[in-house]
C-alpha cells in the first residue's frame, strides 16, 4: 500500500486528493494536510466582500467530504519536508503541526511515498510596511483573499455606506498592495462590485473610487493583457478596461508599488521613479504572494530548502529557471509535469509551483524597484494542474515509478475569467473572458502569442449567469456530490 500526502486543500490540493482517492480506491492511502477546516470557493469571496453572500454560502466543512471519499484528513499545516528520510529511516516524511482546536500545536511526522505540494500562497501582507504582519492582515486595509477577510471587508463597506448616508464623503482605494502582486483580476472585480453596491445604496455621488495597481497598463491582469473578441470586434483588454473605468467614473493610478500603508493613506513609488501618497477611507489592497515557508532537510538534517524551493518559497518543478531576458522567454520554459527535478516523488500544483518567469513584460522603476504583476496560477489552471498531477501520481503508484507523466502546461491551456459587477440575474454588466493559452506562445502564435479564435470576451448579463453557475457547480463538485467527476476543472 502506497501513501500519497497532499499538502493543501484549496482548488489544486482538493482536486488532486479527491481524484487520487477515487482512482486509487482503498488499495492505497491518500492523506490531506490542510490548516483549514473549511473549503472556500474563493471567486465568490468578492460577493461576500460586498455583503451579497455570507461566509456560509462560499464555504463548507471538509471533514465529512473527506470521510466520504476515504481520505485521511489532518487539520494541520506542513512545516518541513525530509525527502530523503532521516538518519534512522530512508522513508521520506513531512512534519506537520496541527491547527485543529483539539490538537493545536502538536507536531507529527507523516511518512509518504509520494507528496504533492498544493499549499497555495502565503498572503504576504508583511512585505509592505503597514499592510500587515507576516500573513496577517493589518488594521488599515481590508482584503477579500479569504472568506473571513471578505466578511470583514463587507462590514467596513457597510460602515462607509452609513457614513456617506450621513453626509460624509468617502474615498475608496482598491487594487494591489505591492509592486509584485498577482490577482489583479480579483481586485478588478471587487472595485466594480463596490461601485455597483454604492450605486444601489444611492450613495455613489458621495464616493470617490480609485484603482491603484502594479500593472503597466489597465487590463494587463498579470497576463500581459490580451486581445479578445468583444461583440465580434477585436479589442485589447486595455481598451476594454479603460472604457469600464471611464464609464463608471473610476480614477486610476498604475505602474505603482505601494511602499507603505498608514491609517488613511498609502505611499507609493511609480514606474517613472516618482513617489507620492494617496489617501483613503476604505482600502482593499491585495497582498503579494509568497511560498508558505516550508523548509526541507536532507538525510543528515542539513537544510536543503534552496534545492527544493525557489527563493520566493515556491517549489521548483520541471521548468527552465535559467535567467533569460524578456526577448528570449519561451512557452517551453513553463513546466509540463510539475515534478520536482531532484526528488521524483514530489510534485507541486497550483500556486505552490515556482513559475520560471513573469508573463507580463518585466518592468522596474529607475530606483530598481520591480513593479510588475506576477503570473496568476489560480482557479482553472490550478484545477487542471491538480488533476494532471493526480493522474501522474496514480500511474506511478499503479504502473511503477517510470510511468509516463501527465502534462498540463500553462502555455497549452486556456483559462476563463468572469469579473462581475454586481450579482443580479436580470441586471448588470459582467466581463467574461477566456484566454488561450494562459502563457503566450510567441513561436506558435507570432505577435500576441495567443490564439485569438479562443481568446474572447463579452460584456453583458451572461457573465453574471456564468458566475452564478460556476459558484454552484464547483461547490457541488468539491462536495463530491453524484456526478462530480463529470464537471470539468
Amino acid at each position, binding site marked *: 500500500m502506497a501513501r500519497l500526502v497532499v499538502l493543501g486543500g484549496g482548488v489544486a490540493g482538493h482536486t488532486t486528493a479527491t481524484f487520487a482517492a477515487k482512482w486509487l480506491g482503498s488499495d492505497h492511502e491518500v492523506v490531506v494536510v490542510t490548516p483549514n477546516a473549511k473549503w472556500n470557493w474563493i471567486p465568490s469571496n468578492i460577493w461576500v466582500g460586498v455583503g451579497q453572500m455570507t461566509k456560509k454560502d462560499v464555504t463548507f466543512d471538509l471533514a465529512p467530504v473527506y470521510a466520504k471519499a476515504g481520505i485521511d484528513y489532518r487539520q494541520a499545516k506542513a512545516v518541513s519536508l525530509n525527502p530523503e528520510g532521516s538518519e534512522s529511516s530512508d522513508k521520506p516524511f513531512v512534519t506537520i503541526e496541527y491547527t485543529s482546536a483539539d490538537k493545536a500545536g502538536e507536531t507529527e511526522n507523516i511518512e509518504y511515498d509520494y507528496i504533492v505540494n498544493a499549499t497555495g500562497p502565503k498572503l504576504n501582507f508583511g512585505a509592505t510596511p503597514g499592510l500587515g504582519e507576516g500573513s496577517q492582515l493589518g488594521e488599515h486595509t481590508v482584503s477579500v483573499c479569504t472568506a473571513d477577510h471578505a466578511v470583514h471587508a463587507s462590514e467596513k463597506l457597510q460602515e462607509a455606506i452609513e457614513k456617506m448616508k450621513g453626509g460624509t464623503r468617502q474615498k475608496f482605494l482598491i487594487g494591489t498592495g505591492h509592486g509584485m502582486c498577482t490577482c489583479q483580476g480579483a481586485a478588478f472585480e471587487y472595485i466594480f462590485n463596490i461601485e455597483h453596491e454604492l450605486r444601489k445604496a444611492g450613495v455613489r455621488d458621495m464616493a470617490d473610487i480609485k484603482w491603484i495597481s502594479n500593472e503597466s497598463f489597465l487590463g494587463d491582469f498579470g497576463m500581459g493583457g490580451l486581445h479578445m473578441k468583444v461583440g465580434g470586434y477585436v479589442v485589447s483588454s486595455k481598451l476594454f478596461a479603460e472604457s469600464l473605468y471611464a464609464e463608471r467614473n473610476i480614477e486610476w493610478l498604475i505602474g505603482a508599488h505601494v511602499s507603505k500603508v498608514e491609517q488613511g493613506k498609502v505611499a507609493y513609488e511609480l514606474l517613472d521613479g516618482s513617489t507620492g501618497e494617496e489617501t483613503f477611507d476604505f482600502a482593499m489592497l491585495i497582498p503579494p504572494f509568497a511560498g508558505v515557508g516550508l523548509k526541507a532537510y536532507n538525510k543528515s538534517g542539513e537544510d536543503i530548502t534552496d534545492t527544493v524551493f525557489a527563493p520566493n518559497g515556491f517549489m521548483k518543478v520541471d521548468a527552465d529557471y535559467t535567467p533569460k531576458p524578456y526577448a528570449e522567454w519561451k512557452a517551453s520554459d513553463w513546466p509540463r509535469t510539475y515534478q520536482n527535478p531532484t526528488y521524483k516523488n514530489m510534485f507541486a500544483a497550483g500556486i505552490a509551483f515556482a513559475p520560471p518567469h513573469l508573463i507580463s513584460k518585466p518592468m522596474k522603476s529607475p530606483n530598481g524597484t520591480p513593479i510588475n504583476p506576477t503570473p496568476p496560477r489560480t482557479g482553472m489552471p490550478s484545477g487542471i494542474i491538480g488533476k494532471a498531477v493526480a493522474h501522474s501520481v496514480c500511474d506511478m503508484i499503479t504502473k511503477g515509478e517510470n510511468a509516463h507523466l501527465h502534462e498540463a502546461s500553462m502555455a497549452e491551456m486556456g483559462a476563463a475569467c468572469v469579473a462581475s459587477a454586481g450579482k443580479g440575474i436580470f441586471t448588470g454588466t459582467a466581463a467574461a473572458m477566456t484566454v488561450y493559452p494562459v502563457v503566450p506562445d510567441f513561436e506558435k502564435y507570432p505577435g500576441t502569442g495567443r490564439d485569438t479564435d479562443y481568446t474572447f*470576451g463579452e460584456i453583458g448579463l451572461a457573465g453574471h449567469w456564468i458566475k452564478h453557475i460556476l459558484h454552484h457547480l464547483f461547490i457541488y463538485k468539491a462536495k463530491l456530490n453524484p456526478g462530480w467527476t463529470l464537471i470539468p476543472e
Partner: protein
Amino acid sequence: MIKEIIKYPTPLSVEYAVDVRVFNNELFALIDNLKDTINENNLDALSAYQIGSFYNVIVVKDDNDEFVEMVNPRLINHKGRIITTESTAYYPGKTAQIQRFETISVVYQDRNGNDKSLQARGDFSVRIQRKIDYTFGATFVQKMSKEEKEKFEKSLENGINTTNADYCPTVFFRDKILKLINVVMFFMLLPLVASFFIDNEQTLQTLWSYQLYTIYGVIGLNIIYFFYAQYEGKRYVACSSCQLGNIVGTTAISLVKLFVITVASYFLLHVR
C-alpha cells in the same frame, strides 16, 4: 523610407498591436520609416500601427518640434481633464471632440531598450495619448463619448467598423423573431385587461381558447428563435461562443414572461 498611411475605410490592420521584445535593425528601420512618413506628410505624430506594423511603437514631435521615439509606451499617471478637438491621419478631414488628460506620466523604452519616462502636458500630452491609443489597436473613436461617437459614425460613409473577414454583426435577423414574440405577448395582455369588463362566461371561454392557440404559437416562436439564433451565430466565425449564454438566457426570460401570461389567462379567462 516613406510609407503609405493607412486611411479609412481600410481596416487599420488584420494583426494586433503587440509589445516589441527584440530591439534590432527591424525596429530601427521602423522608427526611421515613421519619421520619414511624418516629415513627408507634415504630421506631428504617428504610430507604427498606422503604417501597417503591429508593434507598439510611436514617434511624436515634442513642443520643440523634436522627435521623441517611444517603444512600448505606457501611460501610468494623469492629472486634470481637457476637451480637445482632434483630427487623425486615419480619418482624413474629420474632427471630433475628445476628453483627454491634461498632464500625463509615461514610461517607455528607447530604440536600444533602455527604460525612459517623461511627463507631458498640453498639446504634447494629447499627441502622446492619441498615439498610445493606436498601440493597443484603437483610434480616437474609442475615447469618444457615446453622443460624439454616434455623431462621428453618421459622418462616415461605411460606419466606424468597416467590414472585414473578422466581422460579427451587431444586429441579427434573430432580433426580429424576438421582436415578434414580444409584440404577440403584448397583444396577449389585451384579453386579460378585457376580462375585467366581460361577464359572459362563453366569451371568456372563447378568449381562453384563442389565448391557448397563441400560447402554443409563442412557444413555437421561442423554439425557432433558440435554434435559428445559434445557426445564425455560427455563420460568423468572429462571433464568440458566449452568445450561447445570451441566447439561452433570452429564451428563458421570454418563456418566463409567457408562463406568467399563461397563468394569468388561466385564472382570469378559464376558471373565473
